């Protein structure tokens, strides 16, 4: 990790400032986010919850640089992301963020190992180094014996663990999990949540998006979002030291 990721501890890893996002389809305008502000420090495990349609997915897409905000600013590790070009954004996603999706989003034609290697491919890491790192990540999630299996040959829980390995592999500053347990049974759910908790314990920053309160309970801090704005923020560990400012738009 380079020094610009954590220049001073006081600078938050993520900082959303009055962010708005409006979708247009034809003449219809949908305000998915309105004046959302939030800051997350490195090393936190934050759950973002809210009913469906509340804007939590949009928030996650903005946090993951998958979509750019219509208004407001978003700083990731001190860098203003809203002003970045496509290439720079691709680089940010590649190096700083690891994604875990509800649909797993593994490429069916590639083996588990090759799937995990993908972010390293785009980062320009050499082949030997890549497969070593992929194996390490798969070992971390307990799937080192499944390197040569294709996603179709793995159970849902195993596929999600492969996806978590893929999110881990480039050693990104932030792991973004969007409903990671949405398609899993209860055993796999606790499996995946346990894994995320372990990663948090090892010092990773994790943002988990879910609509289930028992899944959110796994996190250290819960941010509730309603109608496109952040309405409640509980910080159970430090009692408000990292509390987000709530600004309604």
């Amino acid at each position, binding site marked *: 990790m380079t020094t610009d990721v954590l220049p001073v501890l006081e600078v938050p890893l993520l900082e959303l400032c009055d962010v708005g996002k409006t979708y247009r389809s034809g003449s219809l305008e949908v305000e998915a986010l309105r004046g959302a502000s939030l800051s997350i420090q490195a090393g936190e495990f934050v759950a973002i919850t809210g009913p469906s349609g509340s804007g939590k997915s949009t928030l996650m*897409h903005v946090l*993951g640089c*998958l*979509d*750019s905000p219509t208004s407001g600013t978003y700083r990731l590790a001190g860098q203003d992301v809203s002003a970045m070009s*496509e*290439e720079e954004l*691709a*680089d940010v*996603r*590649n*190096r700083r963020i690891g*994604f875990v*999706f509800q649909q797993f*989003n593994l*490429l069916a*034609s*590639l083996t588990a190992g090759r799937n995990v290697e*993908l*972010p390293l*491919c*785009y*980062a*320009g890491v050499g082949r030997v180094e890549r497969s070593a790192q992929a194996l390490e990540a798969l070992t971390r999630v307990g799937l080192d014996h499944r390197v040569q299996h294709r996603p179709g040959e793995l159970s849902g829980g195993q596929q999600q663990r492969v996806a978590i390995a*893929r999110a881990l592999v480039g050693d990104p500053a932030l792991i973004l999990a969007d409903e990671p347990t949405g398609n899993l049974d209860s055993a796999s759910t606790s499996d995946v949540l346990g894994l995320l908790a372990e990663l948090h314990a090892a010092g990773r920053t994790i943002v988990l998006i879910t609509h289930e309160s028992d899944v959110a309970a796994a996190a250290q801090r819960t941010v509730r979002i309603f109608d496109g704005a952040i309405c409640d923020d509980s910080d159970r560990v430090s009692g408000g030291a990292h509390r987000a400012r709530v600004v309604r738009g």
Partner: protein
Amino acid sequence: MNWLETIRTGLAAVRSHRMRSGLTVLGILIGIAAVMLTVGLGLGAQAQISQQINSLGSNLLIITPGSVTSTSGVRGGSGSASTLTETDATALASKVVAPDIAAVAPTVQRSESLTAGTSNWTTTVVGTTPDWSTVRARTVDSGRFLTSQDMTDHAAVAVLAATTAQQLFGARDAVGQTVTVNGVPLTVVGVLSAAGSTSVANEDDQAVVPLSTASERLFGGATRTSVQSIYLQAQSSDTLSAAYQEANSELSALHHVRTPAGADFTITSQQSILNTATSVTQTLTVLLGGIAGISLLVGGVGVMNIMLVSVTERIREIGLRKALGATPRMIRRQFMIEASVLGLAGGVLGVLLGAVAGAGLSKLISQPIVFSATATLGALAVAVAIGLVFGVYPASRAARLAPIEALRSE
């Protein structure tokens, strides 16, 4: 991600969609093989025809009676008699009148039955002068050709073409044997070397006799001095047009022709026959090539469909790759390589199939097939271009989508 890595990714994608890749390759393959074969067949026919026409002789002019008028078909001389005579031929042979004409061979010909012992064979009997062998570029295999002595003597001699000799005498030596035509016994003095058959006539099935013998002793009738055609050979290809002019003015004077439209003879050059034949086969080649081009186009539309479907159903993959850090350029490159691999594979296999099928077909129908590098490369370029345009265009559109929109698509 460097090029090598992109190429590896592209190849892996091609391999992992075997059915789809196979179908794409098949479409291009058939199109290219079809273009190669049809154009090859056309060019082969063209080459064969020019070779046949060239085998008639070199620097050749052919004078035939009658002329084609612009209004009403063929103008003949009075009566049914041919208006060309031996006198015309003799005049043209004069070095004073026509210095650029090297050799003159007036001919009469008729289909006759030849008898030798118990064998019987119907073939074309050609009455001509000794110059015929020079003009028509024929040589004798055994024995000798006609001489001017044979002409003056009205000698009862014949020179047989290879097939005729073989039919009448089998493996035996024909020279010195006797064949009977219309009750006149002729001594075989020579056998011609094989020349191959042309589309006009089988040059290896005929009997050549002195012109005087033919008109006086074999054919008879009212047409004793008239000939059916006169073959002229110019001194060289440079003097061909001069020879043409000399023959034209001399014959016009002899036949009292005042205007070119009133001519009762036609002079055709070998080149003009070649041009006519070539233009016909060229038209044929273009037509066939056009049909094959359409099949290539249909193949291309198939490729386009498959590429569009392939890209559309892979928009999620594109979104995921972008989420994992791929730039739009990397995505475009990946699809460009996939499309080129498919296009090139189809192209190379198509060329191979075309070559193999061409060789087989050429044996089967005993027609030469001449492969055209231009047509082959053109077809290849078209195939690759089709793949690229219809593969890369939707991919680059998808690459420009926000990753989340691509990820959400179903």
